[in-house]
C-alpha cells in the first residue's frame, strides 16, 4: 500500500511539474481582455500584443478561429520585426508559416505581405462574424484571462484563467489547456461528468491527460462517489477509483507503457510493458503485471511474447508467462495462406493455473487447427480442436465442418437466397470411458427486395427455414415469414408495419409437437420539421388476440439549444406504464448538460457530458 501511495505521489508530482513547465509556443497572446469559447473554439481579444517568435504585433482587437485556422487582428495594427515595422488597419496571418498580409484602408485598399511567400491572406466573413464578445459570453463553457499561448499542435493554454459556465463565473486556473489540438484530444485537467443519483450519490469523473511530441502520452482518470449524502446508504460512505496509463515512445521502434489502477475497496493492479519492433517483421513484448484482488493474495506475472511475420511463409507467434507461485501460461500459433483463397491457422496453448486459493493446479492443453476456403459462390471451413485436462485426465476433441453459400440473387435481384450448414462432432474421453455426440444445423433464407406497390408504399417479404438434427434425437424444424411494409402518409409522417409468423416443430420418434407465434407491429415515424422528431409503436399478438407493448420516443427542441426528449414504454399484459425516461438537454457546442429522470430506477440525474 505504501508503494502505491508513493506511486500516486510520483504521478501527482509529475503532473504538477508538467503543469508548471513552460513549453514552446507558436503564438503568445497578452491583452487587457482575452476570451476563449470552448463551444465555438474561438478566441477574442482586446488591446492585445501578439508574440510570434521573430514578430511582435499590437492591435485593438484579435479574432482567432482555431477550427478554420483564421487569425485576424484589427484596429491600429502595428507589426514589428527585426529591421522593420509597419502600421496598418488589419492583419490576417498564419503563425505556422510566419507570414501574413496587412491591409490599409486609404484612397485604395493597400495590402503588403509580411514574412515568407507571396500568398495574400484574407479572412472570410463567415469565419469571423461569430467571434464576438456576446457569442463567447453566451457559450456554455468559456474562459477569460490576460495571457494565452497557442502551441504548435493548436492546443491553447491559458494562464491565470477563469472558467465561465453558461456565463456564470466558476473556477480559476493558474494554467489550463483550454482547447484540444487536432491530434491530441483534450489535454490538461478535465471535468468529464458530475451527476447525482439516488443509488450512487454524488458522482464526479475527472481526468488529466498529457501528450508531448508523440513521445509521451499519459492519461489519469478519477471517479469519486460520495454516498454519505444518501438517506438509506448501507455501504461505504465514499468510494474512489484512480486509473492511470502512461506510454513513452523511447524510439520509433520501441515504446514503454506503465499502467496502474486503484479502487478504495482495496483492489489494485499495476503493469509494465516494453514493446520492441525488429525490422518491421519481428515484434517482441516484455511485460510485468501485479494484480491484487479484494481479500485474496495478489499475483505477479512476468511475460514475454514475440511474433515473426514471414510474409508468404506465414506468421508465427509465441508467448509465455510465469507467475511467482509457479503458475505458467504458454502459447504458440501459426497462420498462413497456403494457396489462393485457402488459409490455415494452427494454435496451441498450455496453462498451469492454481485452483482457487488451494495448493492444487489445473493443467490444460488446448490445440486448434483450421483450414478454410473462400470463393465467390461459397465458403468452406473445417476445424479441429483438442482440449486436454492433464490433471483431470479428460480429453475433448471436436472436429467441425461449415459450409455456407454466399447470397444468390434471382430474377434481376428480386429474390435473394442463402444457405448454410454446420456439422459439429464432440468426443469426450475420461479415463477409460468415452462418449460422443454430434449435431447438424441447416438454415435457408429467401428474401425479396422492396416492391413499390403504389406511390409511397413499399413491401418486402423474408422467409426462413432451419433444420436441427442431433444424436440425442432432440431434433426440430422451424420456419417463419416476416413481412414489412412502409407507407409515406404526408410530409414528415411515415407508417411502418411488420407481420411475423414463426413456427417450431419438434420431432421425437413418432411424436411431433410444436409451437407457433404471431406478431403484428405498427410504427409511426414523425419528423414534420427539424425541431420535432420521434416515433411511436404498438405490437399485437393475433394468436391470443392481445396487445403487447407500446413505445413512444419523442424529441422536441422547444427553444433554441434546449431539447426535450422522452422515452415511454407501456406494457398491455401488465396493464401499466413500465418506464418513462425524461430528458431535458441543453446543447452547448461541444458539451451537453442533461437533466434526466428515469422512472424505472427512480433516478434523477444531472449530467455534464462532453460531446
Amino acid at each position, binding site marked *: 500500500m505504501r508503494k502505491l501511495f508513493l506511486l500516486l505521489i510520483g504521478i501527482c508530482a509529475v503532473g504538477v511539474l508538467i503543469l508548471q513547465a513552460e513549453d514552446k509556443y507558436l503564438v503568445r497572446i497578452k491583452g487587457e481582455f482575452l476570451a476563449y469559447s470552448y463551444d465555438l473554439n474561438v478566441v477574442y481579444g482586446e488591446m492585445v500584443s501578439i508574440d510570434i517568435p521573430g514578430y511582435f504585433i499590437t492591435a485593438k482587437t484579435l479574432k482567432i478561429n482555431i477550427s478554420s485556422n483564421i487569425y485576424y487582428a484589427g484596429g491600429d495594427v502595428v507589426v514589428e520585426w527585426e529591421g522593420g515595422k509597419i502600421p496598418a488597419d488589419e492583419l490576417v496571418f498564419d503563425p505556422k508559416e510566419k507570414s501574413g498580409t496587412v491591409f490599409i484602408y486609404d484612397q485604395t485598399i493597400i495590402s503588403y505581405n509580411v514574412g515568407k511567400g507571396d500568398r495574400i491572406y484574407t479572412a472570410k466573413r463567415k469565419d469571423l462574424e461569430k467571434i464576438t464578445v456576446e457569442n463567447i459570453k453566451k457559450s456554455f463553457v468559456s474562459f477569460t484571462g490576460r495571457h494565452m499561448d497557442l502551441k504548435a499542435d493548436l492546443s491553447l493554454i491559458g494562464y491565470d484563467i477563469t472558467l465561465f459556465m453558461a456565463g456564470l463565473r466558476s473556477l480559476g*486556473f493558474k494554467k489550463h489547456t483550454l482547447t484540444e489540438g487536432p491530434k491530441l484530444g483534450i489535454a490538461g485537467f478535465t471535468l468529464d461528468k458530475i451527476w447525482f443519483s439516488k443509488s450512487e450519490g454524488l458522482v464526479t469523473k475527472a481526468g488529466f491527460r498529457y501528450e508531448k511530441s508523440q513521445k509521451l502520452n499519459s492519461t489519469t482518470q478519477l471517479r469519486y462517489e460520495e454516498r454519505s449524502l444518501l438517506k438509506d446508504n448501507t455501504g461505504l460512505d465514499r468510494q474512489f477509483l484512480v486509473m492511470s496509463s502512461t506510454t513513452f515512445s523511447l524510439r520509433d521502434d520501441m515504446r514503454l507503457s506503465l499502467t496502474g489502477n486503484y479502487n478504495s475497496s482495496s483492489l489494485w493492479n499495476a503493469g509494465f510493458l516494453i514493446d520492441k519492433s525488429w525490422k518491421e517483421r519481428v515484434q517482441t513484448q516484455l511485460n510485468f503485471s501485479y494484480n491484487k484482488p479484494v481479500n485474496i493474495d495478489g499475483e505477479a506475472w512476468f511475460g514475454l511474447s514475440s511474433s515473426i511475420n514471414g510474409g508468404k511463409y506465414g506468421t508465427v507467434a509465441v508467448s509465455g508467462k510465469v507467475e511467482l507461485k509457479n503458475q505458467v501460461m504458454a502459447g504458440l500459433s501459426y497462420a498462413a495462406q497456403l494457396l489462393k483463397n485457402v488459409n490455415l491457422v494452427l494454435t496451441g496453448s498450455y496453462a498451469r493455473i492454481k485452483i482457487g486459493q488451494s495448493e492444487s493446479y489445473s493443467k490444460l492443453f488446448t490445440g486448434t487447427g483450421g483450414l478454410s476456403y473462400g470463393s465467390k459462390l461459397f465458403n468452406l471451413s473445417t476445424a479441429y480442436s483438442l482440449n486436454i485436462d492433464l490433471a483431470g485426465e479428460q480429453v475433448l476433441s471436436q472436429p467441425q465442418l461449415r459450409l455456407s453459400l454466399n447470397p444468390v440473387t434471382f430474377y434481376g435481384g428480386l429474390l435473394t437466397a442463402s444457405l448454410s450448414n454446420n456439422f459439429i462432432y464432440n468426443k469426450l474421453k475420461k479415463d477409460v470411458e468415452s462418449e460422443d455426440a454430434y449435431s447438424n444445423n441447416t438454415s435457408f433464407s429467401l428474401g425479396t427486395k422492396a416492391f413499390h406497390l403504389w406511390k409511397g408504399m413499399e413491401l418486402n417479404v423474408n422467409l426462413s427455414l432451419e433444420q436441427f438434427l442431433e444424436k440425442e434425437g432432440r431434433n426440430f424444424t422451424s420456419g417463419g415469414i416476416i413481412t414489412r411494409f412502409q407507407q409515406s402518409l404526408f410530409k414528415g409522417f411515415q407508417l411502418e408495419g411488420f407481420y411475423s409468423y414463426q413456427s417450431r416443430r419438434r420431432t421425437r420418434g413418432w411424436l411431433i409437437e410444436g409451437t407457433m407465434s404471431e406478431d403484428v407491429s405498427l410504427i409511426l415515424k414523425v419528423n414534420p420539421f427539424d425541431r420535432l422528431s420521434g416515433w411511436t409503436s404498438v405490437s399485437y399478438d393475433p394468436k391470443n388476440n392481445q396487445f403487447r407493448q407500446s413505445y413512444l420516443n419523442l424529441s422536441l427542441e422547444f427553444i433554441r439549444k434546449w431539447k426535450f426528449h422522452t422515452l415511454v414504454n407501456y406494457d398491455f399484459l401488465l396493464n401499466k406504464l413500465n418506464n418513462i425516461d425524461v430528458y431535458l438537454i441543453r446543447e452547448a457546442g461541444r458539451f451537453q448538460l442533461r437533466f434526466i429522470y428515469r422512472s424505472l430506477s427512480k433516478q434523477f440525474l444531472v449530467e455534464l457530458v462532453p460531446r
Partner: protein
Amino acid sequence: MKNLRLRFLFIIMAVFLSGCISFRIAPPDWPDKNVDAFLFCRDVKEIESLLEPVGTDDVFSTEETFVLAFVRLKDVSEKLSLRWKWYGPQGNEIRDTGEVPVSDGTRYLEAVTAYDRIGVSLEKTPPGEYITVLFINGTLSSKITFNLR
C-alpha cells in the same frame, strides 16, 4: 487507518490540483460592446427616436437606388466619432464620410443609430464585391462586404 489513507489521498489530490486550480484569480471585465450592429440595408425607419434598418441584405441590384450601411452603438459614454469608407470591386475608394461626431462624451447614451449610403446605378457602380469599413475614433472597428449584381 482507512480514514487516514483517505485523508492522505485527498491531500495528495489537493496538492495535485493546486498546481492548476486557483480561487483567487480576478478575471478581466467583459468589455462593453459598442458596435451592436453594422450591416447593409435598403432603407431605415424611425421608431422611438432611434433608427431601425429595413431590407437588410448583403446582395443588392444595380436597379436599386441606395445601399445603406447602418450602425447601432450601445452604451456610449465617451467622446465618439464615426467614419464610413466605401471601396469598389477594384479596391478603390468611392466614398469617405470623414469624421462624423456622434457623442461629445458629456452624457451616457444607451443607444446610438446612424447610417451612411451610396447611390447605385449600372453606370456609376459596376457589379462586384464592395467593402465598407467603419472607423470609431479613427480606429478601424468593423468591415462588411456586399455584392452588387
